[in-house]
């Protein structure tokens, strides 16, 4: 068949299955400006920056137009140039131009495009006030004065994460991107993954900075400030200093952290090794007993909150292990206070994380002792780069340094935690040894760029089925299959961000697949270069387990619990209240889990029953939006008695019983 071609500014370019004209034009080495186009989410066509002139069709947005054979396209006419400038000017007219103090400065797409197009003056005046900044969330700050309404955050949250916290509200001039009912960000279903920050072209969404608090602790002579670095940070921080993605700069990072004034430099991967041991034992126990399988990993705080909100019935299947960050925190506050002989309040634990959800995790009340958190501050990769720049450190010229002992020593198993599949691989290496089947290294079946992977692994006569999933929409699809019985697994590893922590919300913003693969490879190479590859071989960990961590202590320090989080955080609604005092009180849970289990039908049946039996005058009916018994839904409460897995017959039986007592 004859190949199809288009002509772009006089250049012949073949069409090779690209999903739109914009992708074909890129092959002519022309990068059209865009705000709302991201290859991994749906095409929206809102910003109109990628307009091109198609012969016979006039101006068309190239992102939402398919390429067709013989198309003649111009990307640079007077009309197009004027149009693009006008769009940028209109955006700037309703954009807080305090660029020098904006967290996105230097990486801002609006700044970049305005300069690129030579927009030197804005002809339009601002005619509306900006909505106020929302910093109610522990992880993410939303600044509507910067928003350009590209809808990237709306689509990534909905399509990639299936959470859908944000959407457009109002219309015309009043259009805004907000959470439902314009509620503060900290009070809604947001799982804090920060993927919206990664796609936001401007400073409308940014990580909540904790830099000031860290400086204060460092400058306080009474405080000992220790720092832990997550695996994914070491293969991406360099990107802020001109290194290629995946370049491991652990040595320079350590030296920089010492120069910044941190007292001890440790590695989160040490705690990851500890996680492997705890989670591995937990898994083997569950596997042998056949209980609470599949076991879900619990390292990712965005996933944990997601599960608490949408899959409360699956919470018993989550590993009770704290995440490495939190294991590290509680271990430090327990051990280091003794070793250094200081008060808990004077030991400040800082973590450097590729993640915004870790900021939220550190603030969960169960990770506090009194007022004092296990982890005091969480900085993203970006925030660390800013501190290094603030101090004037010439990062690329630094001599490498080494971690402090004992919590700076790790095996390769702890390092690969930063990649999707890494936790599973680390646990498998441990399980293989534990089941006396020797060393199992390089489990390549678990790796790969696909966001959902299934692997069947045999360890001797034990055959395990593993699910590895990243991106919460993918997780949702997989778990729904598990729920319906269509799929069956022993262990499921969930990471909220596609590709794992290397693509976290606190990382450099590129989510280009090639960049991610390089970061992933960076961590795999680190694993290869380390002396040990299985967590149980970590000598410092062995010593810790032998000397200090009794089973009881380990349980107290290293494990946690989960809670159902009502998705609908509202009071009960009174549906019927009789004039006189009610003899019968019926409360029906209509929360998500109960709803899916038929609570609405049950509600209709019961109200009909009440009316048919002439009980309207004596019955009070209310609906609650979660009784915290999601595994046991539908839940109906009759005169205070909770009926789990309630059926219509069961409820009627109870009603008759109560009614006969009443008379």
């Amino acid at each position, binding site marked *: 068949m004859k190949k199809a071609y288009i002509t772009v500014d006089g250049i012949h370019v073949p069409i090779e299955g690209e999903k739109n004209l914009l992708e074909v034009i890129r092959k002519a080495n022309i990068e059209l400006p865009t705000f709302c186009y991201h290859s991994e989410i749906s095409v929206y066509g809102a910003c109109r920056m990628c307009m091109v002139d198609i012969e016979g069709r006039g101006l068309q947005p190239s992102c939402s137009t398919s390429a067709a054979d013989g198309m003649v396209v111009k990307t640079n006419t007077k009309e197009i140039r004027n149009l693009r400038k006008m769009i940028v000017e209109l955006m700037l007219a309703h954009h807080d131009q305090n660029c020098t103090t904006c967290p996105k400065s230097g990486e801002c797409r609006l700044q970049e495009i305005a300069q690129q197009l030579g927009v030197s003056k804005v002809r339009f005046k601002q005619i509306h006030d900006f909505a106020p900044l929302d910093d109610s969330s522990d992880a993410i700050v939303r600044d509507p004065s910067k928003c350009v309404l590209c809808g990237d955050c709306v689509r990534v949250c*909905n399509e990639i994460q299936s959470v859908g916290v944000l959407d457009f509200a109002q219309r015309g001039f009043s259009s805004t991107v907000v959470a439902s009912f314009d509620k503060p960000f900290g009070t809604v279903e947001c799982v804090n993954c920060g993927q919206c920050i990664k796609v936001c072209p401007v400073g409308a969404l940014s990580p909540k900075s904790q830099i000031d608090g860290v400086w204060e602790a460092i400058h306080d002579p009474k405080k000992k400030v220790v720092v832990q670095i997550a695996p994914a940070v070491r293969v991406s921080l360099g990107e802020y200093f001109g290194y290629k993605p995946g370049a491991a700069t652990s040595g320079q990072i350590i030296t920089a952290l010492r120069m910044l004034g941190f007292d001890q430099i440790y590695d989160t991967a040490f705690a990851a090794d500890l996680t492997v041991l705890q989670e591995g034992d937990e898994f083997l126990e569950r596997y042998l007993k056949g209980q609470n399988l599949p076991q879900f990993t619990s390292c990712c705080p965005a996933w944990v909150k997601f599960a608490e909100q949408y899959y409360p019935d699956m919470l018993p299947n989550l590993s009770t292990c704290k995440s490495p960050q939190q294991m590290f925190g509680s271990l430090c506050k327990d051990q280091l206070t003794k070793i250094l002989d200081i008060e808990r309040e004077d030991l400040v634990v800082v973590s450097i994380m590729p993640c915004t959800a870790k900021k939220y995790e550190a603030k969960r009340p169960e990770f506090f002792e009194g007022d004092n958190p296990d982890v005091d501050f969480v900085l993203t990769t970006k925030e660390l780069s800013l501190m290094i720049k603030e101090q004037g450190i010439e990062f690329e010229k630094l001599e490498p340094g080494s971690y402090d002992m004992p919590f700076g020593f790790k095996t390769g198993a702890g390092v690969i935690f930063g990649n999707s599949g890494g936790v599973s691989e680390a646990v498998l290496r441990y399980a293989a040894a534990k089941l006396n089947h020797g060393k199992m290294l390089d489990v390549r079946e678990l790796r790969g760029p696909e966001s959902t992977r299934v692997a069947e692994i045999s360890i001797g006569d034990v055959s395990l089925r593993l699910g590895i999933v990243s991106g919460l929409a993918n997780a949702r699809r997989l778990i729904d299959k598990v729920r319906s019985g269509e799929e069956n697994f022993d262990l499921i590893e969930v990471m909220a961000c596609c590709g794992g922590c290397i693509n976290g919300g606190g990382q450099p913003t590129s989510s280009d697949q090639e960049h991610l693969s390089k970061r992933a490879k960076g961590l795999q190479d680190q694993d290869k270069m380390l002396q040990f590859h299985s967590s149980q071989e970590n000598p410092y960990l062995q010593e810790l387990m032998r000397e200090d961590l009794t089973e009881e202590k380990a349980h107290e320090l290293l494990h946690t619990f989960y809670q159902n989080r009502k998705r609908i955080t509202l009071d009960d609604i009174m549906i019927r209240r009789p004039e006189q005092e009610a003899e019968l009180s019926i409360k029906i849970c209509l929360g998500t889990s109960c709803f899916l289990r038929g609570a609405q039908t049950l509600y209709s049946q019961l109200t009909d029953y009440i009316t048919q039996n002439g009980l309207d005058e004596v019955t009070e009916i209310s609906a609650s939006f979660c009784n915290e018994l999601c595994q046991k839904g539908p839940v109906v409460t009759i005169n205070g008695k909770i009926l789990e897995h309630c059926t219509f017959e069961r409820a009627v039986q109870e009603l008759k019983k109560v009614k006969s007592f009443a008379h």
Partner: protein
Amino acid sequence: MENAIAVKFDRVCQILEQHQRDPHKLIPILQEIQEEYQYLPEEIMTFVSTALGLSTSQVYGVATFYSHFTLSPKGKYVVKVCDGTACHVKKSTSLIDAIAEELGLSSSGKTTEDLLFTLETVACLGACGLAPAIVINEQVYGHMTPESTVQLIKEIKAKEAQI
């Protein structure tokens, strides 16, 4: 307020069933719910989003996009005073002031506490020949004066008092 939500909850369930809980039918569902409640209560919108498998932000987005939908309770009688050009030059603002005073509405409040009246201004009713014009629910009244408007409101109040 509690009872306003109360009685109609059954209807919400019915409406959802009639539309097979189809998320594509969100707009007709919201329209019918608004007919029941005269507005869209937050609890009910949240329930609808659960039932349809949509995020609450999507439902909120749709409800705020169309000016037909309202998120705050409206009175039994919605009084729309036209403030289009023709009505404006015929002193429609004096009608607005008169109604507000009669109903005891402040500049911020639009609905009376007893949920009987809501006062709204609209840009043009297309009844310029009758300027200044007001519409109460579906009924149009033309050539109004502050006195005749207040009289109209008083008549409704009297009628309601009898019920």
